[in-house]
């Protein structure tokens, strides 16, 4: 019962966050006059085309201007430009939520569609593949290495890893990616320098899959290398601290074998704080995805963000900002579920 209540309350807070971001996006678009400018530009474009069409039938220039002026007013009313920006807010909010943001200016999806939702949706799985693979590898590797180090505190391996972790906190993931491209792709020519498939992509299911994996290797390595350092250190420290707790001695006193003690009394107890730090890793993943995909020209959501910035495509940018927030908030909620399930002390009763 208390588990459900706790989760419900947390879910509510996160929903609030989502709405807050939505509000932020929509309000800043309106208050800075940005949406006004964009809508005016859209209307101007439309009028220009219409004017050309009308000019073929209406010969009199004054009449033409009149018709165009009336058209302009109609369009302005349609887009809500006749009233201040905050009247457009609810509609704008709804449209952001449903990703109904019209068409992108210059970006297109692989199938040629200009609709923002199409462009974005086809990219989501590509990003998820990278981020999920990297997270799983980091988590497993980090846990294994962290536990191993915790049982060997003070050893040379332990000290080495500690220093490396500290250093990796200072290294930007995307620059590490650039470094890897320079060394492994340019100088050693072992890996491709970017993209998702070779050009032209190979035929046949297995060869395609292998080509895909070969291209995904460097981006995944980059993502892993940079989160791994801090992660290993956190696991090691948490496990070490928990292993010194008194109840671990008690567990041994009760005659429990060492394996059980490690699993049920050390790892299980250290899990909640370790999970909290997973959140930090997650923060890195979101930003890391954007920058790493850019560096490796991996056609996912992150790279789309970069392309949209370069071509100033605000529809895509708005949609992506909201989507990234949604993903982030969703992941955090998932983490909350894990945390509350694992640690009974934080539940409301």
């Amino acid at each position, binding site marked *: 019962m208390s588990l459900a209540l706790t989760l419900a309350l947390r879910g509510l807070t996160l929903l609030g966050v989502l709405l807050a971001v939505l509000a932020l996006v929509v309000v800043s678009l309106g208050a800075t006059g940005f949406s006004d400018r964009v809508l005016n530009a859209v209307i101007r474009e439309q009028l220009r085309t219409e004017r050309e069409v009308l000019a073929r039938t209406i010969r009199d220039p004054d009449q033409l201007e009149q018709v165009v002026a009336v058209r302009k007013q109609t369009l302005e009313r349609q887009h809500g430009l006749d009233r201040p920006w905050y009247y457009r807010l609810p509609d704008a909010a709804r449209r952001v939520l449903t990703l109904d943001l019209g068409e992108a200016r210059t970006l297109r999806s692989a199938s040629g569609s200009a609709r923002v939702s199409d462009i974005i949706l086809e990219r989501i799985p590509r990003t998820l593949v990278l981020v999920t693979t990297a997270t799983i590898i980091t988590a497993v590797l980090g846990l294994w290495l962290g536990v191993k180090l915790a049982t060997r505190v003070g050893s040379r391996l332990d000290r080495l890893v500690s220093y490396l972790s500290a250093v990796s906190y200072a290294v930007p993931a995307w620059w590490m990616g650039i470094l890897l491209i320079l060394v492994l792709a340019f100088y050693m020519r072992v890996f491709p320098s970017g993209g998702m498939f070779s050009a032209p992509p190979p035929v046949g299911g297995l060869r395609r899959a292998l080509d895909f994996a070969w291209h995904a290797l460097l981006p995944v390595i980059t993502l892993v290398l940079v989160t791994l350092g801090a992660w290993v250190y956190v696991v090691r420290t948490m496990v070490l601290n928990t292993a010194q*707790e*008194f*109840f671990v*001695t*008690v*567990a*041994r*006193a*009760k*005659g*429990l*074998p060492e394996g059980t003690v490690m699993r*049920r*009394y050390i790892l*299980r*107890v250290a*899990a*909640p704080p370790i999970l909290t730090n997973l959140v930090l890793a997650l923060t890195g993943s979101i930003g890391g995805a954007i920058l790493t995909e850019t560096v490796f020209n991996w056609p996912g959501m992150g790279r789309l963000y970069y392309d949209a910035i370069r071509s100033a495509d605000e529809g895509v940018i708005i949609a992506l900002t909201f989507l990234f927030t949604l993903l982030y908030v969703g992941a955090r909620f998932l983490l909350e579920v894990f945390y509350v399930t*694992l*640690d*009974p*002390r934080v539940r409301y009763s």
Partner: protein
Amino acid sequence: MTARLRVEDLVVHYRSERGLVRAVDGVSFSLEAGEALGLVGESGSGKSSLALALLRLLPSNVGAFGGQVYLDGEDVLSLEMAEFRRRVRWRHIAMVFQGALEAFNPVLKVGRQVVEPLLQDGAISHKEAETRARARLVELGLAADVYDRYPHELSGGMKQRALIAMALIMDPPVLVLDEPTSALDVSVQAQIMDILKGLKASRGLATLFITHDIALASDLCDTIAVMYAGELAEYGPADEVLLSPQLPYTELLLASIPRLRSDTPPEFIRGAPPDLAHPPSGCRFHPRCPYAFEPCPVKVPPPFVVGKGHYARCWLREKGPR
């Protein structure tokens, strides 16, 4: 009749920055079935190390660990660790820890932790084990649903009782209690002591009761051993030790207990407990002893017999009891 527990020349030394800490320096005693031995001493006297040593739970920085510990005639210190863990720990000798420390795993339910030792060798079914555990908890005066609670939901007294239930889950013949009531208030303390008295009587439990409070020990124990600086300085039947202590230290300990209806105020023992890495020469108590004379700083006093089953390590007793 073989003693349930017999300890001979137990030695536990730790390695530390200050040097070799001689926490337990040659301790011997024995415990019969149904007997309660009170081990009394100040903090830092080595009594907790003694308790941990009996269960072979010493930390990794132990320097020397020697002597013999006989449980029903078998020297359990010489066993392989795996066998000790399987056969002896918790089945033959169990421990109730200080309530002040976090003895319970915070993320597991209490019942689960009580039941764990029973499920180790798979001989009993889960259902059977759960029934037994619930019964045990009720025996100790707890509500049946404590089994389903988490440790943070229990009060100090409840947790202590649960710890006792957990220690007794495999019906061990020997029970060690390390300061089981020091974190509790007096009324709860009294309840726990009653429970222990009952267990002693009903199960013939051989109890080693470790405390700093000599008055508390007198309530439950048949024999009292006074530990000072890693050694048993006085050992004897409870009423003898309490009514006519043969050791200056014991005398001072008793004098420091405030008495409700007395004109004399309690005295404190001047000085501080010795550094176990560099104990004083000769009799370890001599710097603080009001009766110290020539042999005290020079020679270590052997245990002088001062009565039946009663000895004291004090040069004053060389010629016999007071």
